[in-house]
């Protein structure tokens, strides 16, 4: 097996491990999304997932969140436990700051530097993989939460 292949497998494995660690954070953001967007704005979450899955640039995801936050008041809505931060601001901060720290930890573990273009491309890819995992988990929790609320409303 080539070094390149081993490295790729290690990257995926480390990203998956990290995804286990940030699961609780994704649950919280998913709950916040359900509270702010409700079932009525499901397309906001599916579009976010679509962009994260299809883009090659992390900045495309950040730009999307900024534009939606500027455009729609529900993206600026707080959450009872996080009243000071709206959904978009909170999600952006997590993806831009917290996940970068997790990316740096993975890179350190795998010996990926930050000087050559090859290493910079790897770092960028790891960040994108982390963002995709996080948004997938968050979207799953959003769906779960809005389905519960929808079920209660139908039952009442």
């Amino acid at each position: 097996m080539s070094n390149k292949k081993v490295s790729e497998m290690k990257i995926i494995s480390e990203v998956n491990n990290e995804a286990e660690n940030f699961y609780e954070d994704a649950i919280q953001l998913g709950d916040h999304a359900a509270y702010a967007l409700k079932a009525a704005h499901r397309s906001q979450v599916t579009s976010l997932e679509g962009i994260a899955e299809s883009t090659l640039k992390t900045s495309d995801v950040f730009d999307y969140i900024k534009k939606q936050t500027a455009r729609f008041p529900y993206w600026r809505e707080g959450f009872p436990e996080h009243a000071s931060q709206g959904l978009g601001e909170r999600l952006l901060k997590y993806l831009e700051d917290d996940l970068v720290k997790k990316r740096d930890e993975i890179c350190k573990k795998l010996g990926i530097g930050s000087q050559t273009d090859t290493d910079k491309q790897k770092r960028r890819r790891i960040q994108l993989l982390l963002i995709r995992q996080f948004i997938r988990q968050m979207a799953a929790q959003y769906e779960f939460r809005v389905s519960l609320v929808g079920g209660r409303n139908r039952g009442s």
Partner: protein
Amino acid sequence: MLTTEQLLKIALLTDTVLYPEAVAFIRQLVNEEESDPLPLSQVNGLLNVAASSKYSELYTFVVHQRDRNWPQSKADIKKFCAALERYLTNMQRRRLKDEFHLVTDGLNGSDARRESEELMAAMAYDFIQHLVAENDLLDKTTRRR
């Protein structure tokens, strides 16, 4: 036509250089120089020009906007365009070659100019896209007047 290698490099630069610089660019104007965020019509117009024109046309548009005789109430637009013109000029004259290493060595004059135009079109579009997103966000939180 840009090579795959150049396009990959531009994607990397977009995430690691252009995005943080676009955020800093807008925040500098809004937070430190006390400008208002640009009206959405202005930034969307700029983005449309960046998306549909050659780089030389985009640059001409920015210069034209900078040199227009804006009323005092719209002086922030002039300030924004002046700063953007400086940023783009610096990128084309210096950074493309010396910092980003995007320029192909050994091209003749016309090929070098064509490549520079294509590189600048791609880089400027990405930069302006990030500017627009950050500007829209700040517009909701910091408009002064």
